[in-house]
C-alpha cells in the first residue's frame, strides 16, 4: 500500500517462537516461528493439514501449545485462556462460522460487549450506547434489517457477516479470520474483501487463513506459507507467488 516508499522495518503484531503442538503421534505444529506485521493484512496459507487451524487455536488460547511462546506486540500470551487473549485485543472468527444460533442478530452483538464491575455486569444489556454501536456494525455488514431475526434463520453468507460484526463489536486490534471466503458466493467474497480493506485502513490488523488464492494475493501485504506445521516461506504476495518451495508444497506444480 505504501507503494514506492522504502519498506521500513514493520512493527511486529502477533508473533510465535518455537510453537509446537502434537496430537498423539501427529505433530500439527512443529516449532513454528512466525511474525506478523502490525497494521497490515497478513495471510496464512498452506495445504490442508499444514497446521493453520492448530496455529489459530494455539494463539487464541483454544488449545494449549506443548511448547513455544506466543506474543502480541511484545506481550506474552502463552497459555492464557481465550477470554484473556480476547481482552488483549485479539478477535477471531471460526472456520465453520460460529454465531449464537438462538439469539437474535442484535443480541449476537450485545453478547460481545465486555461489562466492567458489578454495576456493569448487572446493568441492562442493550442500553442505548451499545445498541447504537451494534447497529453501526450491522449496517456496515449490510444486515441491519435482520436485527430481530434469530441468527439461525440467516443464510450462510449472512451468518459469516454476522460473525464478523460480532468480532468487531468486541473491539479487537487484531482480527483473525479462519477461511472468511469458505462456502461463500463470489459477490460476497468481494464484499468481504472490501470490508477487510476498509477496516484495515481504519487501523485494524488482519490475519487471514484462506484457500482462495486470488483473495489472498489481492488482499494481503504479508503472506506466510505453512507446510507440515512450520513456515516454509514468508514475504509479500509477489515474492510468495514465485517461490519454488511454495509452488512445490502448496500449488502442486
Amino acid at each position: 500500500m505504501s507503494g514506492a516508499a522504502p519498506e521500513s522495518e514493520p512493527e511486529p503484531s502477533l508473533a510465535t517462537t518455537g510453537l509446537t503442538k502434537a496430537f498423539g503421534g501427529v505433530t500439527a505444529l512443529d516449532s513454528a516461528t512466525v511474525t506478523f506485521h502490525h497494521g497490515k493484512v497478513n495471510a496464512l496459507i498452506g495445504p490442508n493439514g499444514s497446521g493453520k487451524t492448530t496455529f489459530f487455536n494455539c494463539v487464541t488460547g483454544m488449545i494449549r501449545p506443548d511448547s513455544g511462546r506466543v506474543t502480541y506486540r511484545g506481550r506474552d500470551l502463552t497459555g492464557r485462556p481465550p477470554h484473556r487473549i480476547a481482552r488483549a485485543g485479539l478477535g477471531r472468527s471460526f472456520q465453520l462460522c460460529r454465531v449464537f444460533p438462538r439469539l437474535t442478530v442484535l443480541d449476537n452483538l450485545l453478547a460481545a460487549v465486555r461489562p466492567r464491575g458489578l454495576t456493569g455486569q448487572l446493568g441492562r444489556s442493550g442500553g442505548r450506547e451499545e445498541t447504537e454501536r451494534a447497529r453501526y456494525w450491522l449496517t456496515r455488514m449490510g444486515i441491519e434489517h435482520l436485527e430481530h431475526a434469530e441468527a439461525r434463520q440467516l443464510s450462510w453468507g449472512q451468518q459469516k457477516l454476522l460473525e464478523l460484526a460480532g468480532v468487531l463489536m468486541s473491539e479487537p486490534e487484531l482480527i483473525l479470520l479462519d477461511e472468511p471466503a469458505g462456502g461463500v458466493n463470489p459477490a460476497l467474497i468481494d464484499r468481504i474483501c472490501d470490508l477487510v480493506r476498509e477496516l484495515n485502513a481504519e487501523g485494524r490488523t488482519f490475519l487471514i487463513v484462506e484457500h482462495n488464492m486470488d483473495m489472498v494475493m489481492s488482499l494481503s501485504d504479508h503472506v506466510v506459507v505453512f507446510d507440515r506445521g512450520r513456515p516454509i516461506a514468508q514475504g509479500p504476495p509477489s515474492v510468495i507467488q514465485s517461490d519454488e518451495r511454495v509452488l512445490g508444497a502448496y500449488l502442486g506444480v
Partner: protein
Amino acid sequence: MRSGSDTRWLRLGVLLVAVALALSFPSMAPSPYEITVGIAILNYAVLSTSWNFVGGFTGYISLGHGAFAGLGAYGTGLLVTKAELPPFAALFAAAAVVAALAVPVGYAALRVRGASFVIVSIALVLILLLVFQSWASLTGGSRGLVVPRPFPGMLRSEHHRTFYFLFLALLAVALLVWWVIDRSRFGMGLKAIREDEDKAQSLGTPTFTYKLVVFVVSATFTALAGGLYALWFGDLDPVFQFSILSGAYMVLMALLGGVRNLYGPLLGALVVGYALEYAKVEFGDTPLHLVVAGLLLGVVVTFMPDGVIPAATALLGRFRRTGETSIREVTAAELRERREENDTTEVSSERSST
C-alpha cells in the same frame, strides 16, 4: 411500536391477575388440604426456578439439584436441633453454608460439559444420600430428622397459611433475581455460553467464572427452598431429600414451561405439581404418579421441545400475523439495493492500492 406496548400491558395485566389469585388462594381454599397442595406446588416452583438459573441461562442440565435442596433442608434442621439457632436464622445460615459448598462443587463439575456434567450432578446427589443415611449419629439416618415447628402453638391451618405466603415470597424473590439477570449483560454472557461456550469465550467472556457465579446463585435459592420445606414439613428422610427424582422434577417442570422464559418453570410446576398431586390422590401410594410424570415428559419433548410458553406464543403469533414477511422473503436483489444505499451513505474509505 404499538404491538410492543400492547404486549407489555398484556403481560402486566396477566401478572397482576396471577398475583391477586396467588394472594387470595389461601382464603378461597375450602380446607387446609388445598393449601398444602398450594405449598407443594409453590415449593416445586421455587425449586425449578432456582434450577433454571443454571439450566435456562447456561444450558447445563443438572439432575442432581436435589442435593442442594437436601443440604438446605438438613442444614436448617440440624442448625435448629443441634446448634439451637432460631429457625429463620438457621434457614439463612444453612443457605450460606450451601452457597459456600457450591463453590468447590461447581468448580469441579462445571469443567465438564453435556452428558458428563449430568452424570457428575447425579453422582453428587447419590454420594450425599449415602452420607446422610450412614451418618446416623448426626442426621438420624433412615429414622429421619424431626425439625421443630418455628411457630409453636400456632394452629395447623394457620401454620400452612403462613408457610404458603413464605414460599410465595421466596418465589417472588427468585423470579425477581432471574429477571434481573435475564436482562443484564451478565445474563447475555450466560446465554452466549448456552449457545456456544467456546465462541463466547473467544469474544472475551470469562465463561468459567460466569458459570460458577450463576451455579452458586442457583444452589443458594435451591437450599432456601429446601430449608423452608424443612421448617414447614418438620420431618426429613434422606431417601426423599437426596433423591434423583426431585432433581428430575425440577428439570421436567422447567422444560415443560420453557427454560428460556421467566415464568416457564413456574408454569411447569403448576402443571406437573398438580398432576402429581392428582395422581397421588387418585391412585394412592402406587408409583402411578411417576408414570404420569413420565408421560408428561414424553409429550413435552415430542410436541413442545421448547416448552409450553414458546409453543403458545408461536400459536398466538400465527393468529395475529400481520403483513410482516419472514426474513427469507427478502430477495437478493433487495438486499443488494439496501447495501448499495448504505455504501453511498457510508464513509467509504476507498484505497488506491493494487
